[in-house]
């Protein structure tokens, strides 16, 4: 019983949440329409950037009701501005992208760690990502957010709570990041 109590307490303390760095106050506090710029993959996980980008976009639309610009529209403007894949656009290019796509903010993500470590009965996924929120009008970085977690961080007791897939881990982490943003002052569209 005491063992269970200890395990329970361990899960209560939990791992740290997303780290938000603010560089400037947001001009537009309501997050209504955003564009996700193609994420950068710094891992060996095949298509890791696309996976994280699509899941984060899905959670933005689902949780926050944010209108996420179609990935195809963003990709179409990139060659017009001569931005190569895996290249980070400059400030003026971000301004043009923001205006063309009609968004308030543009989000650029970098996946710095993504892996699945296998054991006999469970898989322990690991994910670390960094997000930059750019203001469309000026192209400046307003916020950055770093978040790193692994599946066993969510264990409550015994095997309960474990996150066994990197997809699910990404989904949960995306929720945590959005929750953090809204607790930091960002507002949902219409609020």
């Amino acid at each position, binding site marked *: 019983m005491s063992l269970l109590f200890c395990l329970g307490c361990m899960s209560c303390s939990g791992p740290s949440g997303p780290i938000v760095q603010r560089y400037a106050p947001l001009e537009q506090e309501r997050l209504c329409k955003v564009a996700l710029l193609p994420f950068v993959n710094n891992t060996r996980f095949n298509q890791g950037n696309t996976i994280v980008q699509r899941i984060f976009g899905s959670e933005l639309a689902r949780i926050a009701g944010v209108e996420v610009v179609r990935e195809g529209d963003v990709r179409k403007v990139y060659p017009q501005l001569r931005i190569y894949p895996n290249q980070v656009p400059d400030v003026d290019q971000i301004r043009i992208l923001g*205006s063309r796509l009609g968004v308030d903010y543009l989000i650029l993500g970098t996946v710095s760690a993504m892996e699945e470590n296998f054991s006999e009965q469970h898989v322990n996924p690991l994910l670390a990502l960094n997000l930059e929120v750019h203001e469309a009008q000026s192209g400046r970085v307003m916020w950055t957010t770093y978040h790193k977690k692994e599946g066993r961080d969510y264990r409550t007791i015994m095997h309960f709570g474990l996150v066994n897939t990197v997809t699910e881990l990404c989904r949960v982490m995306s929720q945590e990041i959005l929750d953090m943003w809204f607790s930091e002052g960002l507002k949902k569209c219409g609020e």
Partner: protein
Amino acid sequence: MLKKFFVISGLLLVLLIPMTAYGVTVAVFPVEDLSRGRNGYNAPLTEFLRQNLADRGLEVISSEDLMAFMVRRRIRWLGFLDSSNIYEAYEDLGVDVVMLGTVSQLQEKPIPSLGMILTAVEVKNATTLWSESGGMSCADICNLLGLSEPEKIDDLLPVLANELLNSLPLDRLASIDKGTPPVEVEYTSLFPKHARPGEEIRCSVRLRPAAGQRDETQVQLMVGDNDYVTMNENAPSLYEATWVAPNRNESIPVSLVLQSSAGEKQVYYVGHYQVDDSAPKLTIEARGKKVNDSVAFSQKIYVYPQWQTPEPVSRWSFSIKNADGEIIANLTEKNALPKHFVWKGQKADGKKVDEGVYEFILKVWDRAGNETQAATKINFYKNPPVPLLTADITEQELVVTLDRGEGVVPTAFWSAKILFSDGETLVDQQGSELPVEFHLPLPADDETRDLEGLIEIQDILGNKILRRFSSIMQLVTTVEEIEDDAEQDEWVIEF
């Protein structure tokens, strides 16, 4: 017979009602499978989605129609679409909703696991209507006594897909506004980005649908803060405008302004162009030894561009001229200016040039096309100094004098070795100043060995010579010979 007909018709009607209950038509695009790389396709999930949505009362267009549409629109990628293709799906296929799917992970071993992202897009305005993502592995499902637990991907797929699709807002789908898609900016181009005053600036814009076809949209450009330029429709949906850059150095923003007949105005930032009328300011410096107050070289010379105000260049040209003004080498590039140039005294064909004066000319164009030129002259010397060795016999000694022939390049170093032919060395000296005298004992009368000299001289540019004098005694000029030479003040026939 009639009774049978009514029963069958009734059953068919009952079966058909749920299929079109919402009056919503869906196009289920092939699901992308990222676990198979960039071009992966997942047929089982695509088919499952088609079937599941049909079961939920939505009308799903046939795979054949969808495939034909994808071919027509040249859609090569799965998992996402751009707005123009979505609007086209509305017009071409008559669908209300587009369903896009991505398999984010799929693996059977060591533990079967599956992840997916599903998105329903409202085609009228190309916005996300619903989106869900999730991952599941067999380790996530623990039923009592292990009953009905999934053991492979085929078991996981319906469980996960159903779990996600359960939140699909069918009532929202039914209330979709089936209006007309808005005008969309498909393409913009602004050229050039850097211009000289008076240069023509051109902007092209492609819209979809064609402005004027459905809506009398006025298409204009806002250049700067309040200058408006009307765009002409030079081809269907393609608008172009040209104007002249002003006579002042500044960065000018350009925005596209679409104004509908109802007065609704949309502004899109297209970019900015920089007006620049000042030529780049730079000089070039050749770094090397100085001979007679001008830079000279013999092996290779480094030439360094030096900016007064650094700025990016669009192209540059580096050429070398000889004293006659003839260009003997030229290099033109569109890249950035290199930190330095190196010349090894060769022509374009690789052969060494003659000694003489050469001029380096660097031309640079900035991004607006403003040109500047910088030049410098250098001297090229490739011939080594000529050693002159003379010998005199006085009463008690032999005096050997080492000097160098004519030349403007100062001597850097000399080395002299005077020795008998069997190797006995009399002099082994080095120095930098010439001329120099060596005082040696007179060889004995019965001396049979030759007195030899090994002379090496190098100038400050690195030109070097090593010469062997096989018999120094033959160089000896006696007093009588000198006197004879002195008497010859006119040309004589020599026999």
